[in-house]
């Protein structure tokens, strides 16, 4: 099934927003404008967008410490996110959460998460809620190749199978957990998807740097899950362009690795090449989006810089609904 022009433009715009958001954060963090630990999603955009383009606000996602891309793809407000990362009281979480805890339940984004592996059980719960509602909605948990070793991820997979929850386990294998390679930390000689299979799940695999591969894979997978067959898993092979967190000297990378992946595994470049060569979009179409997004991000940064800061009285707000 071919995507419409509008769908393609929107997908590209979403990916580009993530890319520019992150490239800009990379610069701002280096200047010391932003506090805390920030993990950039740059390089993995095709996964977040290829997955989330299939969803509406009643479908839920649960994200990770590397969550900006998932948030943006799911529809979190760009300005609100930027302000949150800057720690403003106008941020999406009023400056309480920061980069690792951005959430917007109203758009079905149930939170980035600082605890590796913590998202999977939460997604199962959201999936059980969807099952109870009976409207074919799904819940998606994103996990890294590191998170797939955490007990909670395994428990969640089994529980989803047992309860036939419409939960989708999206594994983004970017080959590293912090400074450790996938080949070391994931014991199996097989892949992550094979583990999910051993829990009794139907699994898919695709190139996570190819938006169209991700998008098509998810289409098939979602037909299966929305039809009530229970959970499913998918493993996307992808790349992160920056360090584990900002400040990481990345000495674990191979020589020329970063150049190579920026050159050959850049999902935005690949998208452009494929749609232009297939004459689905023109370079001008894409350049126009690039320019718009750039100024959108500029504006977001300006707004975040100027946004009001929280005050000490805010500390005790929102611990409870009522206490």
């Amino acid at each position: 099934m071919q995507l419409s022009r509008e769908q393609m433009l929107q997908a590209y715009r979403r990916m580009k927003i993530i890319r520019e958001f992150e490239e800009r954060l990379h610069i701002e963090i280096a200047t010391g404008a932003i506090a805390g630990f920030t993990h950039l999603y740059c390089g993995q955009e095709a996964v977040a967008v290829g997955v989330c383009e299939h969803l509406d606000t009643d479908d839920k996602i649960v994200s990770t410490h590397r969550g900006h891309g998932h948030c943006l793809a799911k529809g979190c407000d760009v300005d609100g996110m930027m302000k949150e990362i800057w720690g403003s009281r106008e941020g999406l979480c009023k400056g309480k959460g920061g980069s690792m805890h951005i959430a917007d339940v109203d758009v079905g984004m149930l939170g980035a998460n600082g605890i590796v592996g913590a998202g999977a059980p939460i997604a199962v719960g959201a999936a059980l809620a969807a099952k109870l509602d009976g409207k074919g909605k799904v819940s998606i948990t994103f996990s890294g190749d590191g998170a797939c070793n955490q007990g909670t991820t395994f428990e969640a997979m089994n529980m989803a199978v047992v309860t036939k929850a419409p939960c989708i386990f999206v594994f983004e294998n970017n080959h590293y957990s912090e400074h450790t390679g996938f080949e070391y930390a994931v014991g199996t000689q097989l892949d992550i998807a094979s583990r999910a299979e051993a829990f009794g799940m139907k699994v898919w695999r695709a190139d996570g740097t190819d938006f169209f591969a991700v998008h098509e894979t998810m289409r098939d997978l979602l037909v299966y899950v929305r039809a009530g067959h229970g959970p499913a898993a998918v493993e996307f092979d992808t790349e992160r362009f920056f360090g584990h967190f900002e400040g990481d000297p990345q000495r674990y990378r191979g020589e020329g690795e970063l150049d190579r992946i920026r050159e050959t595994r850049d999902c935005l470049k690949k998208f452009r090449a494929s749609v232009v060569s297939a004459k689905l979009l023109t370079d001008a179409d894409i350049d126009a989006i690039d320019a718009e997004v750039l100024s959108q991000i500029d504006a977001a940064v300006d707004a975040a810089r100027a946004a009001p800061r929280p005050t000490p009285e805010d500390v005790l707000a929102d611990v409870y609904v009522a206490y």
Partner: protein
Amino acid sequence: MAKMMYRDAVRSTIFEAMERDDRVVVLGEDVVGGMGTAGGPEAIGGIWATSTGLYDRFGPDRVIDTPISESAIVGAAGGLALAGKKPIAELMFADFIGVSLDQIWNQIAKFRYMFGGKSTCPAIIRMAYGGGFNAAAQHSQSVHHFLTAMPGLKVVMPSTPEDVRGLLREALRGDDPVIFLEHKALYGVTGEVPDGDWTIPFGHARLTRAGQDLTLVATGLMVGRCEAAADALAKDGIGCDVLDLRTTSPLDEEAILDSVEVTGRLVVVDEAPQRCSLATDISALVAQKAFASLKAPIEMVCAPHSPVPFALELEQAYLPSAGKIEAAARKVLGYR
């Protein structure tokens, strides 16, 4: 007015809530029981019989029997709650917060705050706690101090069937995460439960004995032991206020301080070991805010600094008893 057991107050209050509100969902190990067996669903429920009959009435989407995966149980409760449901998750033993703490402490308790107040997470986590069954170090613990220390959680410790009813209803009515601690030695206790649609607001202690000479503060199973001590003291003409805190978070500071302002003498009783316990929490509160009223050192009657031992004699020696409470009271009363 109905007479019922504590465990039935749990079950019937859940049943009632599920009838009224189709967002209420129950999940846990063996909350149905018999799944995947020849006997079939409800062949036999959980070991506390607090969910019997729910599955037959409300079906598998609302009464969810889970694998042995406590992190996933609590996490799923969190996800259900964020997605608009009112989950009631059961941990068979409170000791199993060990295998699910992250989801309680770093997730459920913090969602609302981390998300800037834009979400609610009305998950109720029920768990059976406490000693008295010779179940040894990993199945007998009191965990309220850990949970009380966690901002974002409310912590409830009913000591009677009536309080189970009123406090569980209140938990279900609210929109915050609630830890509901049921003492396993109370499940079989019978008491009156008034009819009608009433609740017990959190943060309101119950005065179960009134007196002018000494304040006894306790929760759960320890309330009865304080009452026994108070009754023994009453025979000597000594009057005790016995305060059942009912909820440890929020805490009814006022009731404690008001009582100590009158009595000037305080004994705090806690089934957990003393270090960083609720007993020290209340002592510290009083030493700060009712200092001028205090006529004697504050005594604490707690478990010793050890795991819960197995043997009958050891567990008996381990748990605070009415005798130990009475002795502490006499010590405080004897201080000049």
